[in-house]
């Protein structure tokens, strides 16, 4: 069964559609990359998956997104529960101005976990999964703001996975990082897909080629083509996709 299904999704800001009639499915435990020039709607689409756009005034939504075959835009749908199931990592790392430990423990606590041992164990596991443990284990009580940009971003991913989401959305998670940190994030994305379904927006096409199983190309709010990543980058079906990935425009 598909993990995420977008059905004729149209989303507009103030009456102007930002994405039009998007039909897209994402299989569980895969990485889907969304590519396209700036303003093509890929980030808007990403934010529709955890209903992040709900907080913006004057928006309009048509169509639907299903997660595990259940409509997330149904009026009885539990949006808070949705955001627990769908974690998000942003372009700019945004750790809380708290200790490294607390950054991860916070999400657990607000989810009702009180057992100290369980919290400590989850913090350690999350930091290990993001390959950060060895770098921070001796300074867990120090401020997260003292970490490097790459470490902060991995901490944000650790924070996201600590609350055991099913889906992780990433909006250009490595675009502000140095090559080594980028490589670590990319490795992490590929490791994490064993347990999660991941959607990543990236401007870096080589990154899309390296980390994703499927790639979707957006242009002017429309989904132009979606296919296996190796097919998109060797033999795209659509000429616009071809022109974009060969650098003819965008």
């Amino acid at each position: 069964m598909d993990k995420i299904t977008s059905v004729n999704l149209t989303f507009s800001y103030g009456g102007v559609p930002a994405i039009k009639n998007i039909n897209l499915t994402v299989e569980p435990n895969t990485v889907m990359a969304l590519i396209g020039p700036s303003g093509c709607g890929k980030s808007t689409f990403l934010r529709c998956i955890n209903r992040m756009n709900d907080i913006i005034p004057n928006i309009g939504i048509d169509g639907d997104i299903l997660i595990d075959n259940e409509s997330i835009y149904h009026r009885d749908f539990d949006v808070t529960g949705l955001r627990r199931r769908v974690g998000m990592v942003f372009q700019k790392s945004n750790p809380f101005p708290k200790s490294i430990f607390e950054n991860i423990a916070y999400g657990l606590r607000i989810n009702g976990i009180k057992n100290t041992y369980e919290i400590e164990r989850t913090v350690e596991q999350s930091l290990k999964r993001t390959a950060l443990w060895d770098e921070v284990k001796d300074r867990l009580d120090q401020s997260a703001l003292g970490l490097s940009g790459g470490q902060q971003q991995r901490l944000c991913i650790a924070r996201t996975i600590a609350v055991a989401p099913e889906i992780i959305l990433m909006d250009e998670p490595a675009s502000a990082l140095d090559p080594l940190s980028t490589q670590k994030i990319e490795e992490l994305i590929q490791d994490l897909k064993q347990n999660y379904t991941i959607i990543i927006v990236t401007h870096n096409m080589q990154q899309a080629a390296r980390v994703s199983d499927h790639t979707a190309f957006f242009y002017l709010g429309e989904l132009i083509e979606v296919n296996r990543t190796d097919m998109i980058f060797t033999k795209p079906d659509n000429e616009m996709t071809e022109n974009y990935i060969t650098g003819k425009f965008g």
Partner: protein
Amino acid sequence: MITHLEQELEAVKTRIFEMSDLAMEAIARSVESLKKGDVRLAERVIQGDSELDRLEIAIDEECVRVLVTKQPAAKDLRLVTAFLKINTDLERIGDLATVVAKETIRMAGKPPVKPLVDIPRMAVLCAEMIKESFLAIAERDAARARGVIGRDREIDELNMQIYRELFSYMAENPHSISPALSLIMASKALERIGDHATNIAERAIYYIEGVDVRHGAHEGSEGE
């Protein structure tokens, strides 16, 4: 606007076309030397092979450089990967032309077994196949490349015909065995050149359409 990637791909393309001209010339000259018993021409073919070897290395280096520095995608990627392989085919064609030239030298001073008709026909067919494949690449015309693939059979048939004919000569006259074997070697080399020409046509189709038609794969399934 022409991008740097396009400029670099054009440069590789120019070199590989240059290499194809040299390979076709080597085929024509080697068979010419065989036909006329022209040892000096044969020696020139053998010397000229080093230029093909040099180009092979240069094109390989350029392709790898484009891959690592420009990370081409889609048809650009297919062009580079196809050229990496076509490059090897052309180099092998050059080597096989020297096989023919060496037989010219081996047969020097001996009376010809028979006037050569079919071997020059094979050479013409080989050169045509290569030329058509490269025109297909230049014009991105997959149908043209597809037209090349079946022609290898004509070369194979000529090769078998030459074998049969030369066997009868050898059976009749033991003195003809040595020169006849030389002609069989030359014919075999041309038959192999036909195989490489077919490879080039197949790689041209891959470049143009992204379809792998080797070993009958995807035959009759257009665009799959």
